[in-house]
């Protein structure tokens, strides 16, 4: 289903989306109706109550990202808010917010983790949350917040006494300011924004997980698994395209793929894509078992970061000058591929 959608719908428009910086509502609505976000929301909160699995999520993320990374991140963006609530929210938070994601139309909700500075580390955030009586006061700057301009709900991560916690902020809350749309090297179709929190006050109960707080390392691990799966999808797209090109393109009287210099690049690309997929599945499997998955997820993600850059760069190289022009999509995949080291927290399974 995800594969067909990626092939029939996403691939039809993705190039245009990247050029224009917009994604047609239609394709996002189609994705929404496939239940990408809502399928695992329990019936009690208005969802179909399907089983939640990081492995299934990884399979879907890979297929969609093979279609296009921007569209995938846009379509799955509401999950950045919904899944942590589903997994770690208090009962009140679940009742209040989960039905929001079970309607007919796409609902934008997002999460804000990354900060615009050198040495950003999700585990030592500069944005702060301070408890003042019955309220949290949030201050700080965030960037790469997908769909911030249209989102009704934000999950903002900030340091509370040094530990990263999530805070639910509704659109329109005083002190939450959405800045200009960002201009990035890749994922150009995905609208991302800087946001500023200036003495933004929310109720004490609006901390993700309430009194208990959240399991932040699990949120990060889910992000790593999702991004690794997407990296595999992007790499697969680049590998297939450059492979097909190398089979057709004739130089010195034979297809360039008949030369080992090209063929060996493709072989290594194929091996590393498969290896990364297996590592991603292993980490996802650990997540599904609720095991400690930090090591597996971190290794898979680091491996995927290197792999997707290597593969997309080689895809451009194999096409030579043609790889550098925007007539072919490999340059887009290289721009998107480079971003995975930055995208922490921008996807989840």
């Amino acid at each position, binding site marked *: 289903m995800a594969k067909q959608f990626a092939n029939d719908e996403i691939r039809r428009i993705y190039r245009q989306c990247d050029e224009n910086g917009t994604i047609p509502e239609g394709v996002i609505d189609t994705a929404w109706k496939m239940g990408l976000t809502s399928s695992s929301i329990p019936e009690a909160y208005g969802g179909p109550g399907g089983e939640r699995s990081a*492995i299934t999520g990884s399979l879907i993320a890979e297929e969609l990202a093979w279609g296009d990374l921007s569209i995938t991140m846009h379509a799955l963006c509401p999950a950045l808010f919904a899944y942590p609530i589903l997994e770690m929210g208090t009962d009140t938070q679940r009742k209040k917010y989960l039905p929001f994601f079970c309607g007919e139309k796409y609902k934008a909700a997002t999460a804000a983790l990354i900060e615009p500075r050198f*040495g*950003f*580390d*999700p*585990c030592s955030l500069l944005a702060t949350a301070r408890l003042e009586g019955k309220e949290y006061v949030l201050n700080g700057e965030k960037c790469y917040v997908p769909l911030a301009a249209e989102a009704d709900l934000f999950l903002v991560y900030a340091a509370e006494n040094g530990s990263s916690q999530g805070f639910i902020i509704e659109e329109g809350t005083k002190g939450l300011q959405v800045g200009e749309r960002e201009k990035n090297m890749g994922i150009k179709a995905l609208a991302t924004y800087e946001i500023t929190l200036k003495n933004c006050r929310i109720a004490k109960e609006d901390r993700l997980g309430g009194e208990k707080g959240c399991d932040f*390392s699990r949120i*990060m*691990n889910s992000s*790593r698994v999702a991004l690794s799966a997407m990296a595999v999808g992007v790499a697969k797209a680049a590998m297939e395209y450059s*492979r097909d090109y*190398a*089979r057709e393109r004739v130089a010195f009287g034979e*297809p360039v*793929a*008949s030369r*080992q210099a090209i*063929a*060996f690049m*493709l*072989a*290594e690309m*194929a*091996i*590393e894509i*498969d*290896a*990364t997929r*297996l*590592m991603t*599945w*292993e980490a996802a*499997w*650990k997540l599904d078992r609720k095991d400690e998955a*930090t*090591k597996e*997820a*971190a*290794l*898979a993600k*680091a*491996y995927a970061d290197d792999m997707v850059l290597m593969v997309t760069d080689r895809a451009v190289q194999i096409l030579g000058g043609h790889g550098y022009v925007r007539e072919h999509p490999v340059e887009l995949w290289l721009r998107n591929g480079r971003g995975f*080291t930055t995208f*922490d927290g921008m996807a989840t399974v």
Partner: protein
Amino acid sequence: MIDFEPTQEQKEAIDIAHEFAKELFRPISRHYDEHEHESPQELIDKTWGERNKGTLALGLDVTASLRIEELCWGDAGLFLCVPGPGLGGAAIFASGTKEQLQRFLGSFNEGEPKWGAMAMTEPSCGSDTSAITATATRDGAEWVLNGEKIFVTWGKRAAENPGGLVVVWATVDKSAGRAGMKSFVVPAGTPGMRVEKLEKKLGIRASDTATLIFDNCRIPFENILGSPEIKKVDKSETKGFKGAMATFDATRPIVAAMAIGVGRAALDFVKETLEKEGIKIRYGVPRQKLIALERDMMEMEANYKAAKLLTLRALWMMSQFQPNNLEASMAKAKAGLAVTKITQKAVEIMGPLGYSRKYLLEKWMRDAKINDIFEGTGQINMLIVARRALDFSRDQLK
């Protein structure tokens, strides 16, 4: 669905093999590295006994590969002394008839320790296995073998110890090219087969790598594996050669399993040392905050994991009778190169301790390298992966 949990049976197999690796292999590891061509008799007798009890069964499945990883964590050279039908057995398994399987391997496990070997490489042909020049000529109810085979792993033990066997690749008709390539089972002690010399090697020194001479060596007609017919129908119809290649689909993941055993030995050694020094590898910390040592360790670990998962996939597919030619080559190419790099990096990290013969790490680096060479070099396996990925024939991608 997808499951990465070893079964209870596999966990037990790993534990038992690990115990042997630790108690039986490691203590004598250095000795047999420095006394090349000496035979580790105690290890041979003991592993032979365990093998026949089933505790160290080394077939071509996931459980066996997990065992092999453990034993090679102990010592890869000594692992190659463990008796069994080995690559000869794998070849018979891949292209023999049921009757041949029974005749050659049916009672292999009985009596004294025995070895099986496969003789393919010749002085003038290595990776290009289709260029072999050894000949098999039909003479009534017999085949007459002539030629020289080098780099035969288990060569001496298989050729000289009663009950052993050597599977020899030879051509029955040079003009037929690949179609003329056939394999023949030569029982140990057959007149006309002799061990010419043992190689002195960079690593896996406990393993006997032999040159075998076949000088009018006569074997029964029924010892040919697969069909004696030469099919010249089509260039792609190269059955004998395909038999050799089918063997590789089975043996390459096994070699990959050996490789990852050596790689893990090096990794474990470095990890233990870091632990003693109080250095912790911080997983999940952004890259720009990591120290070089942490980056190196993570890269080594990830590569070990990548190689292992590719290996298990190739073996699992084989156990499900799925074609695994691509996956077997992927696993072998990745594992051979990965452990070569892992062990070399480990020596660098450990500095004077890494280079010293006081520790086994330098030996593991020497041992690891063979995995990027035998059963198809890394480059040959890349070529196979590339052909598969491109759907190119041998002629389209040379």
